[in-house]
């Protein structure tokens, strides 16, 4: 930190407070999600139900998982589609 930064309390870089905030946000998503595979299973079943209105999917081959890189977490779903429903566009 330069004398200028010390005097005026600033720095051009992201503050360590901001870094702590962002890191905690990400790690807590994982901590909370890791609590129960049960919750992941509920999510999976709900997704199957919704998608099945529009297409035939391979339920057994379907996978969902939380994946993360340095600063974000994503729910990644891999859902093999067997067929589209004819009435898919007319729903709702």
């Amino acid at each position, binding site marked *: 930190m330069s004398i200028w930064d*010390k005097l005026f309390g600033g720095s051009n870089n992201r503050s*360590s407070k901001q870094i702590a*905030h962002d890191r*905690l946000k990400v790690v807590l998503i994982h901590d909370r999600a890791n609590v129960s595979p049960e919750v992941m299973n509920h999510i999976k079943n709900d997704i199957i139900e919704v998608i099945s209105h529009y297409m035939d999917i391979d339920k057994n081959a379907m996978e969902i998982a939380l994946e993360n890189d340095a600063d974000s977490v994503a729910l990644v779903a891999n859902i093999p589609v067997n067929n589209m429903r004819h009435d898919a566009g007319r729903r709702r």
Partner: protein
Amino acid sequence: MSEVIVITSGKGGVGKSTTTASLGVGLAMRGKKVALIDTDTGLRNLDILLGLERRIVYTLVDVAQKRVNYGQALVRHKKYSNLFLLPTSQVADKTAIEPEQMKQLVDTMRHEFDFILIDCPAGIEQGFQTAVIGADWAVVVTIPEVSAVRDADKIIGRLQAVNKDIKLIVNRIDPQMVKAGTMLDMTSIDDILSLPCIGQIPDDREVINASNQGIPIIEWNNTAAGRAYDDVVGRICGEDIPFKPFETEGFFARLKHVFGH
């Protein structure tokens, strides 16, 4: 109506017992009849923080195992006659008290006290279950460090799983570091944990000075931490007390720091 509040944190050393002692004294100063229960069996400390360590005869373990009534184990505070400590054993371990025994005890004591504050041990094992089971709601104490905030989140998950309302106290905030952007502040911790905050306690050297003498810091109302705890007590009693900005050193004090080193 009596209120039973458990003071917990997950991580050790963030100021649970210090907070319990100050909130207890603060409620007693407002005329409430208060019991403090130490559930950190084997590592008790609430007695020494209140200056009552030489007055213990019976403990929570004796009460839970029905050897004595809770009234025989209560230690009256020297200065505030409506404040009582139910100390725990320093030799037994956490398995000496079953959660169900604790719940029964708290439900019995409710009739006699306006407030019962339960000082919870660190961790998430049986001691935590025992401390939490009889409480109406929980205070989670944390400090602005990533490790403490993460552990607080874990405890919050456990508390929500048993349907406890939770309020947050952020302890040991260094106003200068917050100002410089090198420390998490109350707002960012609120955002991370998504909980209402009822206290932000500034880091204050006088806390150690006071506890050396068996005095909870809230008794020293000329200290920054003492005043902050008094605000928390007011909020627990339902008063609408706004959060005040911390006083920080001005430009010239910082100038002195820079060139003084």
